[in-house]
Each structure stands twice: as structure tokens, then as C-alpha cells.
């Protein structure tokens, strides 16, 4: 009876095009894309050779591992967890390929084995975090040391090189022939990125991912199994990191235990710069991809400008700190303004 009362009076109206446009234009992802464009323009104008296909080609190859790992890392961080062991898994995957290749195993089989190692490594993290309820920060600092330790332990300081050209050329191939910008491997990323974007932004699983990060208890009351989802996200970071390890090994034709040392920090920095909240529940993949590219472009431009790689690290760190502080400052200002207004209204 009462429920059939005219709906129009009380039900909220559909958001106007203006509102949608505003969120689109002033949201976090938009800000980071704008930053990317600005960095790109400044670099093109002020740095010689920045805006050439070759630079872009190397830029993409350089950030490729970060691009890959940032995808599953985004899911992990949105659920309120973190995986610091990814770079170690790159190293372990690389060593797996190297050691097996050295023992005479054909490259495709070695690659498959490396991916299995990635799945297992991710599953171990996932098990410790979800089944035992341990804090992922501590667990993955442990597996960071463990996986890297196993990698370094197996190969020591030696490197395995001399992989067949078929494979090393494959990862360096350009999609549209000599002199063009797009490496063929980018297709791998594009496929994975589309899958990730669809899952995170257009499926129930994606909705659950955000829900877990925002309020674990309420999501349990909505029938969401946080443990299972997180477990698979850790498996995904392990697997994709192993894939990045395959790329790393073949690109540099070098399987070493210390490959990609410290890369976990670049990945986390890129995801956070891309607007994902370290507390979970917020962020988008478009922002993250833009975040990775901002860092990549910045590094590449500075390198071309003959700035040493160390100052580049300073820039990366500053970018990370600034990108997290600015929203904090904005909220603080908003709160201040609100308080002023309230005080003015009261008096």
C-alpha cells in the first residue's frame, strides 16, 4: 500500500550529466592522467629526443615489469593488504629459468616451471595471510627475504646467459617493424590489463574487492568471502611477478638472483601515486596504469636529460610522498573551511 506511493517525490534523481562529468574530470584518476600529460609535454619540450619512437619503445620495455605487477598489486592493496615479495619473485622466477636452462631444460618448459613457482609462492603468501590471519606486511617482508634468499642461494653471484635468440628477440620485437615504438610484448600487458579492468570495475568480484577494503565486517554480512578472494589475489601477484621475471631474464639475456632488486618499492609507489589508498577500498586501474607511466616517463626523461639515476630515485620518492600528502592536505583544508562555516552559522 504505502510502498506504491508515488516514487518520484522521494527517490533520488539520476545523477545529472554534469555530476558525472565533474567526477570524471576532477577525480583522482583524472588528476593522475593530467599529471602524466603534463610530464609528457614538459619532457617533450625540454628534453631532446624524448618524443621519439625509440624513447617510447625503451620507456615501455623499462616499465613493463612494473606495469604487469601493478595490475594484481592494485587488487591486493584495494583489499587492504600488501605484497612486498613481488620483486623477489621476479628474481626467483629468473633463477628458476636460469638453473633449468643450465641443466638442459628447453626454455618453454623452464618458463612454465617459473610460472608454477610464481603460483606456489603467491599461494604461500595467500595461505599465511588468509588461513592463518597473519598481517600481510610482516608475511611478505618475510617472503621477500625468503624468495630472494632462495634465488641468490641457488645461483650465488653467477649469471646464466646465452638464451636462444628466438626467445630473447621475441621480447624485444617491435610490433610494427623497425623504428616503431610499440614492443610486441605490450600485447601481453594489454590483454592482462583489460582482464583486470573488467574484473575490478565491471564484475561482482570487483565490487567485493572494494567492499572488503572498505569494511571487512559488513562485506562478510553481505556474503562476501574475503579470505578466498584475497588468497587468489596473492596467487595472481605471485604468478604475474613470475611472468615479469620471465620477461626480465629474456630481455637482458641474464638470469640472476639479484634481478629486479628493490622493484617492489617502485611497484608500490606507482600504485599509490596512481591514487590507490594504502588503507584499501579506493583507487582505479586506469589511475594505476597512469601512475606507472608517470614514473616511467619521469625516469626516462631525466635519464635522457643526463640526470643520474640516483636523482631519478629522489624524484620517484618525492612523487610518492607528495602524491599521498596532497590529498591529506586537501581534506585538512576542507575540514577547516567546514568548521569556519559552522562557527559562522552558529554565531
Amino acid at each position: 500500500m504505502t510502498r506504491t506511493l508515488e516514487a518520484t517525490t522521494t527517490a533520488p534523481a539520476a545523477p545529472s550529466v554534469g555530476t558525472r562529468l565533474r567526477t570524471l574530470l576532477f577525480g583522482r584518476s583524472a588528476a593522475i592522467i593530467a599529471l602524466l600529460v603534463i610530464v609528457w609535454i614538459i619532457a617533450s619540450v625540454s628534453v631532446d629526443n624524448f618524443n621519439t619512437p625509440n624513447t617510447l619503445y625503451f620507456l615501455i620495455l623499462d616499465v613493463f615489469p612494473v606495469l604487469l605487477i601493478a595490475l594484481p598489486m592494485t587488487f591486493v592493496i584495494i583489499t587492504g593488504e600488501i605484497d612486498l615479495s613481488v620483486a623477489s619473485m621476479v628474481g626467483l622466477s629468473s633463477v628458476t629459468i636460469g638453473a633449468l636452462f643450465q641443466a638442459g631444460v628447453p626454455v618453454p618448459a623452464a618458463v612454465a616451471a617459473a610460472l608454477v613457482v610464481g603460483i606456489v609462492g603467491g599461494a604461500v603468501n595467500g595461505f599465511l595471510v588468509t588461513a592463518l590471519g597473519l598481517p600481510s606486511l610482516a608475511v611478505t617482508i618475510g617472503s621477500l627475504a625468503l624468495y630472494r634468499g632462495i634465488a641468490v642461494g641457488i645461483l650465488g653471484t653467477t649469471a646464466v646467459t646465452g638464451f636462444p635468440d628466438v626467445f630473447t628477440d621475441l621480447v624485444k620485437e617491435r610490433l610494427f617493424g623497425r623504428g616503431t615504438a610499440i614492443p610486441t610484448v605490450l600485447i601481453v600487458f594489454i590483454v592482462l590489463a583489460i582482464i583486470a579492468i573488467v574484473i575490478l570495475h565491471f564484475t561482482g568480484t570487483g565490487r567485493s574487492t572494494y567492499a572488503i577494503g572498505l569494511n571487512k565486517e559488513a562485506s562478510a554480512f553481505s556474503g562476501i568471502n574475503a579470505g578466498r578472494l584475497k588468497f587468489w589475489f596473492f596467487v595472481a601477484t605471485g604468478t604475474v611477478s613470475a611472468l615479469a621475471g620471465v620477461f626480465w631474464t629474456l630481455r637482458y639475456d641474464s638470469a640472476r638472483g639479484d634481478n629486479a632488486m628493490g622493484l617492489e618499492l617502485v611497484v608500490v609507489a606507482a600504485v599509490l601515486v596512481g591514487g590507490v589508498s594504502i588503507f584499501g577500498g579506493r583507487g582505479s586501474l586506469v589511475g594505476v596504469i597512469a601512475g606507472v607511466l608517470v614514473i616511467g616517463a619521469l625516469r626516462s626523461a631525466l635519464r635522457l636529460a643526463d640526470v643520474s639515476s640516483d636523482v631519478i630515485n629522489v624524484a620517484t620518492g618525492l612523487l610518492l610522498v607528495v602524491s599521498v600528502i596532497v590529498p591529506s592536505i586537501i581534506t585538512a583544508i576542507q575540514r577547516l573551511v567546514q568548521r569556519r562555516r559552522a562557527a559562522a552559522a552558529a554565531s
Partner: protein
Amino acid sequence: MSATTSRLAALVKRRETSVALAVIVVIVIATLFNSNFAFGSDGFRNLLLTPSILVLLAIAQAVVVITRNIDLSVSAVLGLSAYATGRMFTDWPGAPTILVIVLGILLGTGLGVINGLLVSVAKVPALVITLGTLYIYRGIDIAWAGSTRINASDLPSDFTAIGTGSLFGIPWLTVIALIAFAVLAYYLGYARSGRDLYAIGSNPDAAELYGLPVARRVFGTFVISGTLSGIAGVMYAARYATVSATAGSGMELDSVAAAVIGGVAIFGGSGTVLGAALGAVLLSTINRALPTVGIQDFWQQAVVGALIIGAIVLDRVLYTRAQRALTKERQSSSSEREGARS
């Protein structure tokens, strides 16, 4: 008698005891392989000397972690103050050694102040901030040093003497680490503001509600952490006498590992600097023992990783068991009550 036994039982149950025992076990095993490990001319000295720098970083980390924060920049602070110390000697010949030391330490303090301000004023999680400053400080270090390095010949002998000399057979560096440890242990255990740190880490909301000066205390822990890392940097320069831009890199994880292994809960509120210090001693000793027992030292990091994971799994198992015991206790007391009532 029962008080003594229960105190003894409590002592046995403490994490510090088991870590100390583990250190002894490692030393005994290594010494069985090679008696020089503990008894050789340099053996005993190294036993004390090797852990000192990591001990400083570990107790620095512990103070921060107890408040439910983390400082990943400790290794970069160490690197920067180590290089700055060396650089002051080369660029400023005839500088009073003590002044250089003080300035080197104060640089660490200053870097800690920056961390502290960013975390406590801007209210951004320490993990993110110190990850950023880890990059920044290390980057500044590398940019400043380039590929150059400080060599022993650049340093005055009275400075390097700190790294090699000893007091009653105990290396100076160990003495410094012990003093820093003792001061901090006293502060955390017996000063009101030190106890605040535990309260903040145990329940940050309650601490705020209770009126504890949360932001000021957290800021303070980062200053302590920076200062201790600065001391560690100066000690590093004195001990190794060669300082490159990568001095101490990766030690941020060792410091977290030492604290966690020593029983400092990663989410704050519990743990002691004694545990963290012992954790550091264990890690350093294992590191040195591996080649002695015939394992390539490449495996050292794997051992560290296994220890960290083992320690947190152990913590969880013990916690779950304690919780179960408490529930049972409460059930039996409530059924007693029922019985009494009927």
C-alpha cells in the same frame, strides 16, 4: 617459592629467552665446526662487533613499530650519515673529530624529524612516507657520492680507532650499542612517555580518547629512530672506513626482521628493545656462522626470511592458544556462577 617458580616460568616463556638460546645454539654449532668462531683471536671480538650496527637499527625500528608505525628509511639514513661523516673529514681537513661525529648524528636526527613531521602532521601512513623517504635519502646519498667513495686514508686515525679500539676487551662499537640499548630499554620500560608508546600501539583510538599526546609521541619515535640510525651511520664509517653510496642498503628489512624475530608485534603494542636487539644479534650471528658450517653465505637471506615467517606464525599459534585458554577459563567461571545461583 611459587612466586619464584612462576617468575622463572614467565622468564622461560618469554620470547627474549628463546631468541637468546637460539643465539647460543648457533654459536655452539658454529664453534663445533670451527673453534675459531668463538675462541679464535678475532672470533670473540667479531662475535661482539658484527651485530652492533644492526642492533642500533633494530632497536630504532622497535621503538617505531611499537607505536604501530614503521620506519623503512633507517638504512638510507645510515647511508647518508655515514657518507656525510666521511665527507666532512675529507672536505674539512683538521675538523675536530668529535664535532664531525656530532654533526653526523644530528644529520640522522634531522632526517628523522622530516619523517616524523610527515607522519604525525600530514597523517599519512608511515609505511608510505618512509618508503618515499627511503628513496629520497638514498637518492641524495648516491647523487652526492656518485661513484666516489671514502677511503680509510681519508679518515683521521682517532676516528677509525673507534671502529677498531676496545674498552676492557669490548669493542667500542659494542659499548656504544649497549649504551644506546640501555638508555632506550630504560625509557620504554620506566618512563611515563615511554609507556605511552605501548598504549598508542596497543589501541590508537583509545590513546586519542584517553588524551595521550599521540602525534607528539609518534613524532618523537621517528626522531629517536633517525638519531639512532645516524649513530649507526657514524659507527659504520668508523668500522669499515670505506663508505660508498650504497652503505647499509637493504638493512631496513633486516631491522624489521630483527624486531619481528625478537617478538615486537608488527601491529604495535608489545615487544621490547631487548628482544629486537637479540633478534639483531641472532641474524648477524647466523650470517657469520653460515660459511663456518659450510653453507654458502648466499643462503643467509633465505634463513632470514624463514625466521621472520617462523616468528610470526609462532606468535599467532601462541596467541590463539592463549585466547582459547582464556575462553575456557571464562566459561568455567561463568558455569560456576550458574551453579552458585541455582
